[in-house]
C-alpha cells in the first residue's frame, strides 16, 4: 500500500505557502488584482520563484532544482489556487518545465531548466488548442526551415500568462511532426493581453507572422509526437486540478463562514439541515478530488505514461466539476449578497468557468478515459 500520509516536510511546505499567501495574496490584494486586470503580481512572483523555489521543486538537482516529487508541487499550487493568486506558477512549473523535460534535448534542458529553477524566468506554453483534452493534436503554428533557422507563422488565440512569461514555448508543425520553439522576451513576436471574465489569470494572444528564429531556438532534436508529451500534459492537468481543489476549498470556506454567522428566521443558516447536507456533500466531493490529485501525484513516479495521463484526467474531471459546484453553491447560500461584486464568491465562479475549459472540459477527459477502458481490457491493479 502506497503511503499517502504527507511527510512533515510536505506539511511544512504547505503551511508556509498558505501563510505567505494569506499575507501577500489575501482578499484585499485579490481585489487589487481584479481592479488592475493585469493578472500578475510581480513582487509576489519574485518571492515564491526566487526565494522559495516553488518552480524548482520537480526539477532535477542536476538542473539546479530540488528534485522533489509532484506532491510538493501540487501542494503549493493548491495553496495558490485557494487565493486565486495572480502568479504564472502553473504555466511555469506545471506546463513549461514538464514539457521541456518531456521533449527537449538534454542540452536545451540544461540551458533553460536552471533559469526556471532559480526563479529567473517565468515561462509558459502556447498550446495550440487550449480547450482540447489533447492540446497538441492541432496547432495553428507552422514552422518552415529557412537560412539555417526557422520561420514561424500562426496565431495562438489564448496563451496563459503570455505577458508575464519571459519565455514562451511554442509547439509548431513542421512538414513532419511537431517541433518545440523557445520565444524569449523580445524575440519579435507580438502578444496582446485579452480582457477576461476571470480577471485573476492573465491570458494573451500570441501572433507570429514570418517570425525568424535561429536554429538554437528549436529545443527538440528530431520532432516529437503528442504522445511523447503525455507526461507533460498529465502534469499540466494535475496542476490545474490541484489549483481547482484549492479554489474549491477556499470558496467552501467562504460559504461555511457566511452560513455560520448569517441569521435568517431567527437561526444561523448553518443550522438548516438542507444547508448542512449540501455543504457535507461538497466536502465528500472535495475529499474525493483531493485524494485523486494527491494520490496521482504520489503515484506519478511509479506509473507509466498511460496511467499518469488517465489519473490526471480523472483528477481534472473530478476537480472541474467540484469547483464549479462549490462556487455555485457559495453564491446560492450567500443569498442576496452572493451576486454582488463586493463579496468574493463570484470571483471563484468566474475562475471555475474559465478554468473548466482549459486543457479539456470534464466530459472530454471522461471520454478519453472511456476510450481507454472500453477499447481494451479494463485496467485492474
Amino acid at each position, binding site marked *: 500500500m502506497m503511503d499517502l500520509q504527507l511527510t512533515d516536510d510536505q506539511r511544512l511546505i504547505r503551511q508556509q505557502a498558505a501563510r505567505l499567501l494569506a499575507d501577500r495574496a489575501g482578499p484585499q490584494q485579490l481585489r487589487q488584482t481584479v481592479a488592475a486586470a493585469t493578472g500578475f503580481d510581480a513582487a509576489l512572483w519574485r518571492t515564491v520563484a526566487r526565494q522559495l523555489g516553488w518552480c524548482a521543486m520537480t526539477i532535477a538537482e542536476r538542473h539546479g532544482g530540488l528534485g522533489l516529487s509532484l506532491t510538493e508541487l501540487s501542494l503549493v499550487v493548491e495553496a495558490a489556487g485557494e487565493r486565486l493568486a495572480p502568479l504564472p506558477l502553473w504555466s511555469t512549473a506545471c506546463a513549461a518545465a514538464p514539457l521541456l523535460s518531456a521533449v527537449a534535448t538534454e542540452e536545451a534542458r540544461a540551458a533553460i531548466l536552471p533559469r526556471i529553477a532559480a526563479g529567473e524566468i517565468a515561462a509558459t506554453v502556447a498550446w495550440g488548442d487550449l480547450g482540447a483534452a489533447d492540446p497538441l493534436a492541432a496547432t495553428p503554428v507552422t514552422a518552415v526551415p529557412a537560412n539555417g533557422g526557422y520561420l514561424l507563422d500562426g496565431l495562438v488565440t489564448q496563451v496563459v500568462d503570455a505577458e508575464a512569461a519571459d519565455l514562451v514555448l511554442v509547439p509548431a508543425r513542421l512538414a513532419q511532426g511537431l517541433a518545440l520553439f523557445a520565444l524569449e522576451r523580445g524575440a519579435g513576436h507580438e502578444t496582446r493581453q485579452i480582457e*477576461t471574465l476571470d480577471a485573476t489569470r492573465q491570458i494573451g494572444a500570441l501572433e507570429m507572422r514570418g517570425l525568424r528564429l535561429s536554429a538554437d531556438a528549436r529545443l527538440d532534436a528530431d520532432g516529437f509526437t503528442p504522445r511523447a508529451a503525455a507526461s507533460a500534459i498529465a502534469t499540466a492537468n494535475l496542476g490545474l486540478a490541484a489549483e481547482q481543489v484549492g479554489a474549491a476549498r477556499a470558496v467552501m470556506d467562504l460559504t461555511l463562514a457566511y452560513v455560520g454567522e448569517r441569521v435568517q428566521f431567527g437561526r444561523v443558516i448553518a443550522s438548516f439541515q438542507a*444547508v448542512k447536507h449540501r455543504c457535507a456533500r461538497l466536502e465528500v466531493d472535495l475529499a474525493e478530488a483531493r485524494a485523486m490529485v494527491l494520490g496521482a501525484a504520489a503515484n506519478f513516479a511509479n506509473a507509466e505514461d498511460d496511467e499518469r495521463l488517465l489519473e490526471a484526467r480523472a483528477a481534472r474531471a473530478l476537480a472541474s466539476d467540484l469547483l464549479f459546484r462549490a462556487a455555485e453553491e457559495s453564491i446560492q447560500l450567500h*443569498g442576496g449578497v452572493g*451576486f454582488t461584486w463586493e463579496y468574493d464568491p*463570484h470571483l471563484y465562479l468566474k475562475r471555475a*468557468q*474559465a478554468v473548466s475549459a482549459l486543457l479539456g*472540459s470534464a466530459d472530454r477527459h471522461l*471520454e478519453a478515459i472511456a476510450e481507454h477502458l472500453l477499447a481494451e481490457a479494463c485496467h485492474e491493479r
Partner: protein
Amino acid sequence: MSDDRLAALRAEVRAWLSEHLAGRFEPLRWRGHAGDGDALPELRKEWERELAGGGWTCPGWPAEWGGRGLSVAEQVAFQEEYARAGGPGRIGHIGEGLIGPTLIEFGTPAQQQRFLPAIRAGTEFWCQGYSEPQAGSDLANVRTRARREDATGDWLVHGQKVWTSLAHLSDWIFVLARSEEGSTGRHGLIFLLLALDQPGIEIRPIRQIGGGAEFNSVFFDGARARAEHVVGAAGEGWRIATALLGFERGISTLGQQMAFAQELDLVCRIARENGAARSPELRQRIARAWAGLRAMRYLAMRALCDDASREGRLARLGYKYHWSNWHRDLGRLAMDVLGPDGNVVDGDPRRERLRRLFLFSRADTIYGGTSEIQLNLIAEQGLGMPREPRGDRS
C-alpha cells in the same frame, strides 16, 4: 375568446412594434433585460411613453383606468409578441404590474387619481421597497421604522431597503415598514408610498457580479410619506404587501419564456458554428434544456389556469424553482458551449449576451424568494410537511 381574436391581437401587436420599435428606438432591441437593467435608461423611458401612446402600457387594466381589459390569454399573447420582437426591458413594469393593480384594489379614490394615470402614461416610474439587509428572504422580519408626525399626520421613515430594482431610475417607491413600536412578525406593519426625490432618501447602487448595477440600497433617514399616501391602514401592511405579490400572476412568464427560447436558440446556433454541437455531452444538455423549456411552457399554461387540484397547486408552487434553476443551468450551458472563448471579453454582442445570461441568472435563484424558500414552501404548503421552526420562537 376565440383563436381568431387572439390571432388578430397578435397581428396588431406585431405591426405596431415593427413600426415603432424602429428608428431612434432601434438600439433598444433586446436591451434592458435581467443583467442589463440599467442600459440606456433615458431612451427606455421615452420608449415607455411611446408604448403608452400606442395604448400598450397597462393593457390588462380596466378601461376605466386607461387599460384595454385584456384577458390573461390576451396579455400572454401581447407579452409573447413583445418578447419575440426583442422589446426592451420595461422600466414601467413595477408600476404597471404591481403597485397599479394594488391601488386599483386597495387605494383610495384620491390615490388612484393621483398615481394611476401617470403610470399608464409612462411618466412616473416605481420601485419596490421590501427586502432589508437583515431580513433577506424573511419579509416578516422587516425593521424599517415609520413614525407618525402628529402635526401633519405624515409618516417619517428610517431604515434601509436593499435589492431595490431600478431605484435610481424611479420616481416613487412603495415601502413596507414597521409602524408599531415593539411589534414583530406580520403585525404592526404599514404600506407607504414615498416620492424618491426628497431629502432623507439616499440611493446607492449595488454593483453586481456582472459589473452592472440595476439594484440599489435605499437609505431612509426621516424621509416623509404624506398622510394620504398610506395604502390601507397602519397595521395592515402585511395584508397589502402580500396581496401585491399576488398580482404577480405569472402572465409575464410566458413572455419571459420567449426570451429564454431566444437564448437557447442562440446557444444552438453557436454550438453549430463552433463545433460544440459535436460534443455528445453538450448535445444531451441542450436537448434537456429544450425539454425543460417546453415543459415550462406547459407548466405556465397550467399554472395560469385556476386549477384547484393538488397537481395544479403544486405546479404553481414549483414554478419559480423550476424556471430559475432552468435558466441558471442554461447560463452554464451557454458558457460551456462557448468553451475557452467564453472567457474572452471582446465586445462580441452574442458572447456578451450569453455572458450576461451566465452571470445574471445566478440571481434568478435568489431574488424573489430563494430556491431554499421555494422548497420550504413546496414542502410545507404543497406537501403538508412540518414547518421549519423559527429559531427565535423556540
